[in-house]
């Protein structure tokens, strides 16, 4: 059975290779090849899942060793896989949601001439993401880690002729590289501390305790903080969050799959996977919770101010991952719930993005919610599925988000002490803001007046790249319509997940029992009862929805955004993160490189040349060489040879 693990990765990798190298011959069928191979991987995942379920809880780790990758004296990196409950959960999420989004893209990308390449990149992403979660050592994980970064780069910049897309792609890769530096240093630290970076010996396997606990707390803290840096890059956590909003330049299915459901959650995977290291580094864990709490508020505030539907959802993604990171930082109290929220979020956020894509598809690719309104009549399926995703994310009782987010808020309080109160308070506040901004999105899009009537949806200066635009013509008044079945079916399936997954996981603590053997679990010591936390969450929900309704439901939404308060304006600019980066890093960097180019040309070159000149009168010789090079060279050679002969003769005389 374990021999199937490699095939999980091989199927989409094959798809990527065939689609990217295959050439134009495959243009007609490329989308189906990609979707098929993604589905193959999903089916294999189901088979393996069935196999794991058939085993006892302690015996659910499969390993497969393929070959020795980098064998160097004292250094051993292998290509090997480890499938346990944690990676299995990810495999099903990645291939399941991935296959649905492949299917959706068949419709969404129908009119794009480079569609074959798009599906090749999507398959490449799946392969890299599966490698990331299946690798049995950190260096191989790193390959998947940067592999998904590459796929993300290629897909954000898919419409490369748009300068904004190309810039966003580059930015995503660069910010991620800063995070990758952290992963790189973490692996080096593991190597010098433990002599290995393989999961088996380090983190423990088959009931055996790993050696991770043998190191000093200082070393573990250093490793953990470096892993956190990596997680911040990949999962768009403060301070490396700036790329995610821009990443919405990519086609919407990409935003759904990579920048909402799967890749951006890799940081959470990394932290939970490294539980054995974080558990020994409480200081680092505290930093993790702080990063999570700050980001969940940061993302939520940004989400409130955006008029671009995808960017509002991107802020939301950042915020929801903040919840997961916060939970992961709580240690055994929170690991399981971090992953549970990750899975339910995968359903409802992917569903929300696909819904947004469906809206854009029917609206000539307009993304400005101020030019939407009243769309529920025109797109009933999109409205219902999006609405269920909306209810799930705000934590409406009984839906997925209700179970998974509540657990995180409870766990935050359960950390105990002042920290518990602060973190729990942040999480509650976040819940209120979530309810606010999601209600705002919902109202602006599907309710109210039809603000798109009597006006072209796109200004001519910003020609759209999304394929539907070319199809419908750009300046016409939009004719909102429901999307084809190939797009709505995935939305319906995801809506089912958004509604039922949380309840299914929570009844009888199914998810907890499934994951606990890998991550461990402890209850913590909450100062508040479960009922109190749930009650408080409900109050926050009602407040958030109420304010949004008062602002956007009872009053007409202006088509042109009002100036807004200072905070609103800052939030529209992503709380000035880019302005900061621009002034400090971009401008500073430009000045640095420009002055270095000057220094290199005048100073370094000049000093070296000058030294040479003063030592041997070389500058004069240089001029002469330029005139009569061959002769002078001959003289030089002759001179050298003469010195040599003289010296050796001298030696013999001695």
């Amino acid at each position, binding site marked *: 059975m374990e021999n199937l693990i490699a095939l999980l990765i091989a199927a989409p990798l094959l798809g990527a290779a065939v689609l990217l190298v295959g050439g134009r011959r495959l243009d007609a069928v490329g989308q189906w090849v990609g979707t098929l191979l993604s589905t193959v991987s999903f089916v294999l995942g189901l088979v393996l899942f069935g196999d794991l379920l058939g085993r006892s809880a302690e015996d659910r780790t499969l390993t497969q060793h393929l*070959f020795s*990758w*980098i*064998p*160097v*004296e*004292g*250094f051993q990196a292998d*290509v090997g896989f480890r499938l346990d409950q944690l990676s299995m959960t990810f495999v099903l999420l990645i291939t399941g949601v991935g296959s649905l989004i492949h299917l959706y893209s068949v419709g969404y990308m129908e009119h794009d001439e480079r569609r074959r390449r798009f599906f090749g990149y999507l398959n490449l992403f799946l392969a890299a993401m599966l490698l990331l979660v299946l690798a049995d050592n950190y*260096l191989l994980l*790193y390959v998947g880690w*940067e*592999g998904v970064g*590459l796929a993300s780069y290629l897909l954000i910049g898919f419409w*490369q*002729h*748009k*300068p904004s*897309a*190309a*810039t966003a792609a580059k930015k995503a*890769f*660069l910010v991620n*590289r*800063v995070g*990758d*530096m952290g992963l*790189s240093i973490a*692996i*080096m630290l593991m*190597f*010098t*501390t*433990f*002599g*290995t970076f393989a999961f088996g010996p380090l983190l423990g396997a088959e009931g055996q305790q790993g050696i991770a606990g043998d*190191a000093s707390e200082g*070393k573990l803290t250093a490793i953990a903080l470096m892993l956190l840096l990596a997680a911040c890059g990949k999962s768009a956590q403060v301070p490396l969050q700036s790329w995610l909003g821009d990443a919405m330049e990519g086609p919407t299915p990409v935003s759904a799959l990579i920048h909402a459901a799967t890749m951006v959650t890799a940081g959470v995977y990394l932290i939970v996977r490294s539980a054995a290291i974080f558990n020994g580094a409480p200081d680092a864990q505290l930093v993790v919770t702080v990063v999570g709490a700050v980001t969940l508020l940061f993302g939520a505030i940004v989400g409130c101010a955006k008029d671009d539907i995808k960017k509002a959802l991107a802020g939301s993604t950042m915020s929801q991952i903040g919840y997961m990171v916060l939970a992961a930082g709580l240690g055994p109290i929170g690991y399981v719930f971090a992953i549970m929220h990750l899975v339910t979020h995968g359903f409802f956020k992917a569903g929300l993005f696909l819904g947004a894509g469906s809206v854009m598809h029917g609206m000539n690719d307009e993304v400005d919610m101020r030019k939407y309104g009243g769309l529920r009549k025109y797109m009933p399926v999109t409205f219902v599925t999006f609405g269920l995703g909306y209810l799930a994310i705000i934590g409406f009782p009984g839906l997925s988000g209700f179970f998974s987010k509540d657990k995180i808020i409870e766990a935050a309080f359960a950390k105990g002490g002042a920290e518990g109160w602060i973190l729990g308070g942040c999480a509650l506040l976040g819940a209120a803001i979530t309810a606010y901004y999601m209600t705002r999105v919902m109202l602006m899009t599907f309710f109210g007046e039809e603000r798109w009537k009597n006006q072209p949806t796109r200004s001519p200066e910003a020609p759209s790249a999304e394929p539907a635009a070319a199809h419908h013509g750009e300046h016409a008044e939009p004719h909102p319509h429901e999307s084809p079945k190939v797009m709505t079916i995935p939305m319906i399936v995801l809506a089912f997940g958004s509604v039922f997954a949380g309840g299914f996981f929570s009844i009888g603590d199914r998810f907890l029992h499934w994951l606990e053997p890998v991550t461990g679990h402890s209850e913590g010591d909450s100062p508040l009862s479960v009922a109190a936390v749930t009650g408080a969450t409900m109050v926050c929900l009602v407040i958030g929805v109420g304010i949004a309704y008062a602002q956007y439901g009872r009053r007409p939404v202006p088509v042109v955004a009002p100036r807004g308060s200072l905070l609103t304006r800052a939030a529209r600019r992503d709380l000035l993160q880019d302005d900061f980066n621009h002034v400090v890093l971009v401008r500073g960097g430009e000045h640095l*490189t*420009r002055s*270095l*180019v000057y220094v*290199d040309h005048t100073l*370094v*070159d000049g000093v*070296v*040349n000058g030294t*040479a000149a003063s030592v041997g009168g*070389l500058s004069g010789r240089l001029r002469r*060489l*330029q005139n009569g090079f061959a002769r002078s*060279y001959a003289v*030089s050679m002759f001179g*050298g040879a003469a*010195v*040599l002969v003289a*010296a*050796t003769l001298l*030696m*013999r005389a001695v």
Partner: protein
Amino acid sequence: MSFPLLTATAVLPAIGAVATAAVPAARRNAAKALALLFSLVTLALAIVVLVRFDPGGARYQLTESHSWIAEFGVRYELGVDGIGVALVALTALLIPFVILAGWHDADPLETGSKRWRPTQGFFALILAVEAMVILSFEATDVFLFYIFFEAMLIPMYFLIGGFGDRAHEHGEEAASTQRSYAAVKFLLYNLVGGLIMLAAVIGLYVVAGNFSLAEIAQARADGTLHMATSTERWLFLGFFFAFAVKAPLWPLHTWLPNAMGEATAPVAVLITAVVDKVGTFAMLRFCLQLFPEASKWATPVILVLAVISIVYGALLAVGQRDIKRLVAYASISHFGFIILGIFAMTSQGQSGATLYMVNHGISTAALMLVAGFLISRRGSRLIADYGGVQKVAPVLAGTFLIGGLATLSLPGLAPFVSEFLVLVGTFARYPAIGIIATFGIVLAALYTLVLYQRTMTGPVKPEVSAMPDLRARELVVVTPLIVLLIFLGVYPKPVTDIVNPAVKQTLSDVHKKDPKPEVEAAK
């Protein structure tokens, strides 16, 4: 006596050079075909050498030894260890691609033009360089090595000075001036390095009484050859200086951007992927073996210079306006990594450095040759003259991106393996330097992706709108290089297996052991 295989690997391209040069002027294409043929047969021979080499066997294999200048104890001694054999193979591998990529680089500018360019000479010179570089990797007699180390400057000088890019922003006259400036600068820098080394070579002879690498190293290890500390240090510096110019190490690097910028792309590949490797190779073989104590003495300074090279080269690459100069500064950064790996004196560092030499050769060749194809289409080296190329020439853009991703050491491609080994090997002994060097990976992403963005993405510039995609000949050049980059990224074991024993030997020469993992050491 067995067949002198190593001599043959060098004699063959040398004969090829003479034969190519002798082809009559009118039969240009025959000369090119002949040069390509000779380079391919040399490659076949290098593969035989690789197969015959036994990684578990003696340190130097396939040895040849003949008395040459008996009076001075100069012998014609050849032999390869794992490091040498890997670099001989790299050289033999790259030359056919260099020749094929430069197929039209030396064609007459236009029929009837007075500025006739000697096509035959171009290819003959490339083969001559190949012969001398291969001999430098094979020579185990210090004086013999010195001769080839210096002699390769002559054909290189003519290649840089005589055959530049056809395109130049300030016209042919300015190009010609800049070309000869670059060629002379290349020559003078290396000549000065070589002369200082010559003094050290003579000094070594004075101390040791012969030029045999194996004998001197053995005598040093036995303690039968004693060297005063100051003598050893001076001799070390003499050797190291020459290699640091060639490698090149900051601040002796300024000749490289000139040379690589002015030369044609294939010649630039020849410089950075092949010729410069002799410098780093020689550090491993001569500096560490002959002067182990002095090497350790100089390590701190060299590590600092190497890490400056990494960061400085990368920052300068970010600031370049010229595609080829950008690649040159990127190479300076990469050479910093190689030197860092060598002088970290750990198994991972040195195996990584050797692997790095091979991988850098392949990845730079891929990137630079595609850049050359691009430049030949538009007639400009300036980044700002391009834009939106991927729309009109997707295959060219795709291969350029892969070359770039290799340059930024994307995991899954060969350079990642070597770069990570160098970093981890450095970090194990010098954590602070390892961390600073790690910044290089962010900067590498910056200069590569900015280059790609500015040239390949965005709206299509009118000047590139009619640009043809890669032609068959160009695809034949690029495809195998990309396949190799992927293969060696996924399965570098064939190379590490050859290199590891040689690195182990070198480390024992300098009496260095790898640091133990902390957890293990604590027990």
